[in-house]
């Protein structure tokens, strides 16, 4: 008995020693690892040391002179990142929980939730809360302050930018939701539904940059004397018209860029709405049929109102993505040919004109535009019970 109690107190003693050391170790791993990761030369240096240790001094020297192959150094960096980011963070949670576990019970209960919440909250404060405040202040103080930065938005070119964003918002959102709804309704009635859906759904996995390249190829223009290898111009000239430089021709170009977004987002709308349609009870549908509703009436007058909540969810989610649209415009036109949108203009202000005040003001405008849509989205999500 006595020896057992002794062993237990021994283990409690070691716990008291090991746990705080572990916690200090975890924090040290994160701090030192972070410093290592922040150092541009860190990985090559470490790799050179490793080469020295295994006796291959030539390679170590090559690396130190910056002429060696950096692939291994990069993989090493990635490995360290996983070790620090995942290992360090886990070790922190484990040891911090154990450390708190050694405190008095009621103090434990007070501190443990903060151990769980604090890492996430700290990152959010640094990367989202503080920047939001800082961006608003920048928009009010830099580059001539409020009047200049927000006043610039009423100039001719900027009004065109906002007009384009509005066209994007209406056409891209409306187009994706409408097509998604129709396709969900149509596909619901065929046997190979899952296969058919995959075709429409697939673009959702593709990056906006990749999609932009795909469609730039569809819109390729060659002078009339040359072969038209762009699909759109091939069809267009095939029907007898002269080829058009689609990307450089306003106002049609904005709509063609919007088509890229519709092509991507329709699959998303289809999936959500298709699930909603399948949730409509068979009794409701049978009853409508007995009352003599045509199939079209059944779809638009009975099913669509029932799945209204899902339609709002889809529309608001797409609308938020569309308001912030950047990649498509950046890759295809960089905002030229009268296709500019707010997010691209902001990027130009930051990295081409170096006017942070103007850029910040545009970010604030985006923020304000997203606000009501997001509010609608979250409120609707709650009443829908989606995401539960």
């Amino acid at each position, binding site marked *: 008995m006595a020896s057992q109690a002794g062993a237990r107190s021994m283990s409690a003693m070691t716990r008291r020693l090991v746990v705080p050391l572990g916690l200090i170790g975890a924090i040290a791993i994160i701090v030192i690892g972070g410093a290592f990761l922040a150092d541009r030369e860190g990985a090559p240096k470490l790799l050179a040391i490793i080469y020295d240790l295994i006796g291959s001094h030539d390679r170590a020297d090559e690396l130190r002179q910056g002429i060696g192959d950096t692939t291994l150094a990069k993989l090493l960096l990635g490995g360290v*990142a996983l070790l620090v980011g995942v290992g360090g963070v886990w070790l922190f949670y484990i040891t911090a929980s154990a450390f708190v576990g050694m405190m008095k019970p009621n103090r434990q209960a007070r501190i443990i939730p903060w151990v769980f919440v604090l890492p996430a909250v700290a990152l959010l404060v640094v990367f989202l809360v503080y920047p939001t405040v800082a961006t608003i202040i920048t928009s009010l103080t830099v580059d001539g302050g409020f009047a200049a930065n927000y006043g610039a938005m009423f100039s001719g070119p900027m009004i065109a930018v906002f007009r384009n964003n509005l066209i994007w918002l209406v056409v891209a959102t409306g187009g994706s939701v409408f097509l998604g709804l129709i396709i969900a309704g149509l596909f619901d009635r065929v046997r190979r539904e899952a296969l058919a859906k995959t075709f429409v759904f697939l673009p959702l*996995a593709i990056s906006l940059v990749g999609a932009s390249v795909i469609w730039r190829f569809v819109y390729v223009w060659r002078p009339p004397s040359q072969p038209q290898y762009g699909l759109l111009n091939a069809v267009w000239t095939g029907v007898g018209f002269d080829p058009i430089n689609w990307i450089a021709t306003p106002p049609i170009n904005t709509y063609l860029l919007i088509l890229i977004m519709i092509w991507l987002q329709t699959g998303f709308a289809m999936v959500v709405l298709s699930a909603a349609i399948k949730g409509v009870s068979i009794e409701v549908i049978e009853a409508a049929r007995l009352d003599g509703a045509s199939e079209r009436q059944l779809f638009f007058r009975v099913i669509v109102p029932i799945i209204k909540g899902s339609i709002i969810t889809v529309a608001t989610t797409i609308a938020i993505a569309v308001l912030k649209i950047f990649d498509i415009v*950046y890759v295809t036109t960089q905002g030229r040919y009268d296709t500019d949108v707010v997010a691209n203009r902001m990027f130009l202000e930051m990295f081409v004109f170096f006017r*942070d005040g103007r850029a910040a003001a545009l970010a604030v405008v985006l923020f304000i535009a997203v606000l009501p849509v997001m509010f609608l989205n979250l409120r609707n999500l709650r009443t829908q019970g989606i995401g539960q």
Partner: protein
Amino acid sequence: MTARPIAAPPLKPRVRWRPALLRSAPLKAAVILICVLWSLPTMGLLVSSLRRPEDITQTGWWTALLNPLGSDWTLNNYATVFGSEGLGTAFLNSLIVTIPSTIIPITMAAFAAYAFAWIKFPGRGILFTIVIGLLVVPIQMSLIPILRLYAGLQLNGTFLGIWLAHTAFGLPLAIFLLYNFISQLPKDLFESAAIDGATHFQVFMKIVLPLSVPALGAFAIFQFLWVWNDLLVALVFLGVGPDVRLMPTALSVLVGSRGEAWHVLTAGAFVTMLVPLAVFLLLQRAFVRGILAGSVKS
């Protein structure tokens, strides 16, 4: 007739509308037409990426597709983009950036979501509301201040900078989704664990994590795709240096520098799509489940 047990009602009644009429030819034709139309652009890309550079600009890709035996096919374009055009490096960089940027936010979000859902502490309600409220903040609001912060810390153009940024930007949605899932777990589990004297950490490890695998997996897929496909964050915090380019930045640089070199662009675009398409095709079910749970980050 064999006796059948009383069938349980189907879980989700499938809507079938007048099958005889609606499986008619026009409907089938419309469905096939939609599928073909939707695939044409990608098809053009894939076909062209396998053609010789001079062929791509001489005839439309559909001529090669209609006459596959009479056309010259090649994999040279892929060798070119992986080698001299630098997409090989970009591929590696993208992997190095994306994997930690997926695992770290999920870890942090899972702990936080559990605390928000099942531990009572003062300030919980307000804090949770703020975290969810951050869903509203567009990434654009963070760019300028974080860029300045990074300039001071010399983090611009480092992988650490982009890992931290993606982790933080992914957290609100991750916490929101995982909270929705974890808070719906049966209360009895937690009560009996508390009676057994389990600590919160033990409860998290032994009950919450194993039960949350579907939600964690669904979010992981979306965060992975989001980071892999992201252009803006990579452009702002990593830049376009040949050493640190990711797939989307590398492709956008190619568009700028070799805008009419379609053999490079088509192969390059297809390479950037490989991983997302593989993820999508292999994990389609989890993908759909994730979408229905609201995982799409916008």
